[in-house]
């Protein structure tokens, strides 16, 4: 009896092994499909951008005589610097508010306020970018226009983008602060440090890794944002010289001109897409180096 039962288990084991092998094969097939898709995306972008970048072609993007695709002048520099200016500006504005609200939820807010406040930030993270754009276009641009015409400008883009990336900074900083050992707070209390000294001198430095990851993710989002920026930045191709000048960023340029671009112009747009992808690659590499732990992309 026991013998046959043992055999049965053995037999069924062998049979199930077969199922396992099939499953493994099936799943590897799906994984292979994913990998293929990843390669396809990169390969196709490179293929489309190739006419503009092969040989010395990429040098034409560094020309200083501007972006006049119909005349074959494809200087990307003004838009590159505009992207950097908008991204860095938004980060500088968003960082104090994001970090401040993370500190607020973690250490300052009474429980009754802290939880709904965290909920508000999570909600803010879910608002679609096109809604931010709509709000910026109909509320912020007229307001800035009264102050410093024309309204649609680098400044407006920075403000809208800052509000968009604030939740990313705030939520990652908050979870980094939350993950700190309680010992740090107890020790600070034992040393009779003031609350300000504890937060600025002990807790924020201890959580810098997580905070930096949040900042990197926020930069990636800021550089990649397209329509919200397109709607409020004015889209004039020029070097960003003043805070209230209209600018056009790389992503907006792709969205505006893709519809009618041909030949070299089209290849140049793909090349700028490739460039964005490369920058995001560097940022993701940095973020994964910083956070040794598993990190979800959201």
């Amino acid at each position, binding site marked *: 009896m026991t013998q046959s039962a043992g055999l049965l288990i053995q037999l069924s084991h062998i049979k199930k092994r077969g199922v396992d092998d099939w499953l493994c094969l099936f799943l*590897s097939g*799906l994984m292979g499909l994913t990998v293929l898709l990843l390669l396809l*995306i990169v390969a196709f*972008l490179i293929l489309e951008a190739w006419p503009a970048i092969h040989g010395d072609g990429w040098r034409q993007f560094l020309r200083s005589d501007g972006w006049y695709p119909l005349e074959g002048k494809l200087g990307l520099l003004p838009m590159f610097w505009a992207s950097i200016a908008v991204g860095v500006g938004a980060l500088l504005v968003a960082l104090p508010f994001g970090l*401040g609200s993370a500190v607020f939820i973690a250490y300052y807010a009474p429980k009754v306020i802290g939880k709904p406040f965290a909920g508000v930030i999570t909600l803010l993270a879910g608002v*679609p970018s096109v809604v*931010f754009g709509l709000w910026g276009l*109909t509320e912020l641009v007229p307001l800035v226009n009264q102050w410093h015409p024309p309204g649609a400008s680098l400044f407006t883009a920075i403000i809208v983008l800052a509000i968009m990336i604030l939740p990313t900074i705030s939520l990652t900083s908050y979870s980094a602060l939350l993950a700190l050992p309680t010992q740090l707070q107890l020790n600070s209390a034992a040393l009779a440090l003031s609350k300000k000294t504890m937060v600025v001198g002990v807790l924020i430095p201890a959580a810098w890794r997580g905070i930096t990851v949040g900042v990197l993710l926020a930069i990636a989002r800021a550089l990649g944002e397209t329509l919200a920026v397109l709607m409020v930045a004015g889209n004039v191709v020029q070097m960003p010289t003043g805070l209230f000048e209209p600018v056009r960023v790389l992503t907006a340029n792709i969205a505006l001109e893709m519809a009618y671009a041909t030949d070299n112009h089209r290849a140049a747009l793909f090349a700028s897409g490739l460039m964005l992808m490369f920058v*995001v690659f560097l940022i993701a*590499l940095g973020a994964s180096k910083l956070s040794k732990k598993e990190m979800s992309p959201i």
Partner: protein
Amino acid sequence: MINRLFTLLIWGLASCVLFAFGWLMVDVLVQGVPMLSLDFLTSDPIRSGRAGGIYPIIVSTFLILGVALTIVLPIGLGSAIWLCEFSNKDSKIVSTIRLSLDVLAGVPSIVFGLFGYAFFCGFLELGFSILSGGLTLACMMLPILIRTTEAGLAAVPNEWRRAGAALGLSRTTLLWRVLIPYAAPAITAGLLLSIGRATAETAALIFTSGYVDRMPESLADSGRSLAVHIYDLSMNVVGGDKAAYGSALVLIMFIVSINLLANALSESWMQKRVSRQ
């Protein structure tokens, strides 16, 4: 004194954030709510959307989402299960795949739009269609879905896998009866989040699913998603702001309910984990 000032500063920063959020929300509600009616949801747009409703746009949005999900669900879940349960975690290839998924999750959506425009619309000759749009969205959702599903599976304690092996369960049974049920709320939460992302997407859809605001006749027809509709109304249609706010309210309500559902799911899952430990 400095301590007081710092406390004041923190409260000040937090209230500024609250103020910005309040401004945005009040604006959308005040301008959006008067537009909202059953008629708005069930009639066709008139004069490029200045009047009329958004019925065909809602239908197109769900069709695009449906196409994307049909593609992304099997591939994404399968890949995540392979990565977490069947792959050799230390191998160079697996960590390269992980890094490329992380990179892809952060790639700007307009770049996916470029790819979709060149590959699906151009190379595969699908044209501006719901199919192209859905496939492009699928590419965008894939890395997010894989990474969240994988994180959900990775959080299943290893003892369960050992116990399963000790009971002589096949890996298929273990996966089907133990790991997936345990990780289901986390997987669903990840899925909902990527649906939210996809619904909010505009840049990747403008050049793939197109601009046409009439009722799509088939998946090969062009269809305008809700987010693209808002963009078009506010940028290209003079006097379309009211309808844009109405559509924005509908979009936000949809995404907020999806996010709330995702939060509730992952919270209940966290509690389950804590109580079982």
